[in-house]
């Protein structure tokens, strides 16, 4: 059934004043994730409580938190005096905003013309099969997010995969399999080894 007990933690439109309560016990803000709470304090001071702050606040939240958690959007709605659904409606319109925590590593496969001709389509399919996720998704263990980019601008190195901030040149399904294995396994015990030294990652930095 609908939850009268805790189903109403929404902000409300049209009123930009936050209610002052006798005491904060049980106020949803008191249970906020500390990272969101820290961001919120600064954001509320920085952005005026008007609808035109919606996108700047969303950008600020994503910069600070890496993505837009529901609680952050709720907090924005509350500050702006609009319903949370309105904030989500705006955010979901733009490709720049993400709604799930990104993985520890980001694998971006170029699907531009040159890379595609050199086999990035098949490469992407194989990576998806290895990771069991679609582009835009993150593996269940939170280690890798997979994305695609239309042209990375390093056509001479095609097919290109970007791992975090590092460009991997002329990748094959087999070389990527190794990269992914290393990333998923994490650093081996006793030695810290960065993904950068993976065998397939010999490519020079752009």
């Amino acid at each position: 059934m609908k939850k009268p007990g805790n189903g109403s933690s929404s902000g409300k439109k049209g009123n930009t004043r936050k209610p002052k309560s006798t005491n904060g016990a049980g106020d949803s803000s008191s249970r906020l994730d500390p990272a969101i709470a820290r961001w919120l304090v600064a954001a509320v001071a920085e952005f005026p409580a008007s609808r035109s702050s919606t996108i700047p606040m969303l950008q600020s939240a994503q910069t600070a938190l890496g993505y837009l958690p529901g609680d952050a959007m709720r907090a924005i709605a509350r500050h702006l005096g609009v319903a949370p659904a309105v904030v989500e409606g705006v955010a979901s319109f733009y490709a720049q905003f993400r709604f799930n925590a990104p993985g520890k590593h980001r694998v971006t496969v170029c699907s531009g013309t040159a890379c595609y001709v050199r086999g990035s389509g098949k490469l992407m399919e194989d990576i998806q099969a290895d990771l069991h996720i679609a582009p835009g998704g993150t593996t269940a263990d939170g280690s890798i997010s997979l994305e695609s980019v239309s042209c990375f601008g390093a056509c001479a190195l095609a097919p290109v995969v970007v791992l975090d901030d590092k460009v991997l040149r002329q990748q094959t399904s087999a070389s990527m399999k190794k990269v992914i294995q290393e990333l998923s396994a994490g650093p081996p015990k006793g030695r810290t080894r960065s993904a950068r030294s993976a065998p397939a990652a010999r490519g020079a930095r752009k």
Partner: protein
Amino acid sequence: MSMLNLTINGRAVAVEPGKTVLDACRSAEAYVPTLCDSPGLDPYGACRLCIVKVEGLRGMPSACTTPAADGMKVTTEDAEIQDVRRWTMQLLLADHPLDCLTCAQCGACGLQAAAEYLGIRERVLRPMQRDAKVDDSNPCYAIDMRKCILCGLCVRACDEVQHLGAIDLVKRGYASAVEPFGGGPIRDSICESCGECVERCPTGALTTRRYLAPEKEISTVCPYCGTGCRILLGSRGNTVVSARGDHDAPVSRGRLCVKGRFGSFEFLSSPDRLKTPLIRTADGFREASWEEALALIASELKKYRGDAFAGLASAKVTNEDNYVFQKFVRAAMGTNNVDHCARLCHSSTVAGLALSFGSGAMTNPSDDLLEAEVILVTGSNTTENHPIIGLKIREAVERGAKLVLFDPRKIQLSEIATVWARQKPGTDVAWINGLMHVIIRDGLMNKDFIKSRTEGFDAVKKLVAWYTPERVEKITGVAAELIVEAARLYAKAERASIVYSMGITQHTTGVDNVRSLANLAMLTGQIGRPGTGVNPLRGQNNVQGSCDMGSLPDVYSGYQKVADAAARAKFEKAWGAKLPDKPGLMVTQMFPAVLEGKIKALYIMGENPVLSDADVTHVVQALEKLEFLVVQDIFLTETAKLAHVVLPASAYAERDGNYTNTERRVQLTKPVVPAPGQARRDWEILCDVSTALGYPMSYASTAAVDEEMRILTPSYAGVSYARLEAGEQLHWPCPSENHPGTPILHRETFTRGLGQFHPVEYLPAAEETDASFPVVLTTGRMLEHYHTGTMTRRSKGLDGLAPGPFVEVNGADAKKIRVKDGDSVRVTSRRGSIVLPAKVGSRVEAGVLFIPFHFWEAAANVLTNPAYDPTARIPEFKVCAVKLERAAEPVRS
């Protein structure tokens, strides 16, 4: 105001400035297809079907978003326009499932109508399948996004009408969809299931679960709270099959809450309806004829004439039914022992405001809230219990009004309050005195008003001097600075309105609480003008009317006192009977009197005290002890099961008559369908019973009852059926046929002359917490249900939304007894004990529990304290001491 003159398809029309080209087209009776236009919503221009040509304007502007201008020449239809419209439609149809024949919206579909008008016979674009889920989580309505045309009507209805914003358009391009926040099932969202979106959806994307197209529709008054919304009930044959808002209704203007829209008609055709009289036998009930039942009642009741008899009238039946009921008790049975459930909700209002102002009713109409600068709400969970008045508060706040809320629970209004104070239950007099202290200290009182319109101010001034914000903080738990801020907001506003309900009245200090609020309004002069006033929201759809009709032990209709010899003589003459001069017993005195053997027979019309009264264990004992009990109802309620004779009555949609809403507005209704079986109108049954008892009563029609009542009741004298039928909106007092009615009371003078200040000292609740019962229990209603659930729990939609009892527990308290959300807990008071699931959250503070009283499985009133207010005799439903334990046994279901 000069009108704008336009030419539509060569026809001249004049419209008011501010109207759109679409409005002008409609004035000229030119059809323009639309999908995203709906009454009461701002123009949006999403569907692009209302495009027209305007001479001198480039292209084809949408008529709905183009303001009408003087001299415009508009063409609504030519080959080029139709061609563009057809392509627009083809694009909409490309991914629309063409399952029209089996679609719930078939025949009422805007898309279908537009396609038909445009002559579209086939889909010309490559069909696409939209990958969207059906969300059937809400038992009242279903969402099928495959049929959505993204017109945005639902989003705008939720925002502009319901002032909620539960849904919005998310994503973009082909992935666009309407979703609640977070994208989960709608039922887990903040949606209030009002159904405004469903009613406006042009396609089958939003459909009510139980819908049949009606044959005809008749407007009637909603059977639930006292707001007075009107519903268009649709019927087929003898069955009500649909309900929607009546856009011509003065109070609700088309809006309805979940109860009105989804829960107002299913119970009418329930198989459980009483259809014949029932007589109790050794092994249950047997059906009987009216003759037999009436003969039995007459022979039994003859033995109990006088004060051994008592009657309970009902706030759910019409004014005429109530008038006849109290006449029957007084004239035929010779006693003033007549009362009804108003005793349990607002008797402290009737008593308190009558003492302070001279009239115990809401002072201003509910639309006045839109004119208030500050609204002080206390003890009213308005958005759940009077949802349409709640919408007016939300709308007022959206327009810039400030909301000051005193409520111990984290109710929805707390989200939009400027000041929200969580007082400890039962400490209302203290904070109100605190507000007055600050207002006097800061010199914010209205000295002219106090001097010219009131008396007794000095005593109040002296008393509240003690109530400094700091002392008040100690008593109430409300921070001193909130008291100061609330006082200043209220006093400084040009127009400030007080709204309250049972959080104020249902206390042993109920009358004190009400009089304190009256003091506050008089101190600041916030009364007698639009946007001000002291506004008790009455609970039942005709509780105001049943009080007005004299279903009270001390007054005849129009609050004419039975102890007043002149009034009594007037009624004795009119009714041709000797009437008792001593006021009778109130509800809360009747049941103890039964147990003492003073009352031996009881006649109950449409009430269910077994669930609704405080300390129901004693109520049941009393009912079982009665020598004779008659219950007249639409269902075999928990109370009716204890009766000797049960009589089948007609329900609200099956009878005619007047209802007086919380604003004192009298509204006439007509029957929509006939009553089932042998069920009859309450006043007809009462006339037959009375006649059988040797006091003949008969009326040709309900109107004839009204005629007699008006002659005897000055405040209703001018409220005739003829005027109401002509559409006049009449608020009593309306003393003559040419009186316009009185929407705002106490304008020039108070009803009693001068407003009476009355010093009120704070007294703690009758039962305070102690070591054995350390937690405060407060009770109330919830959005989806009404009272003892007799009607709402028979609605699959409402029952699906709120299927069973629960107790709201603060997370901290739950942790102490190791209970999670949904676990069973036992709540015990000095009077009884119930087991029910815990709803763990932050809605109540630690040390406070809340239980809705709708559910017989775990009846909150097993626990409540029957201690009552000394004047109004209203029980203290809102405070009792309980203990909370983890329960080993599972919850009964």
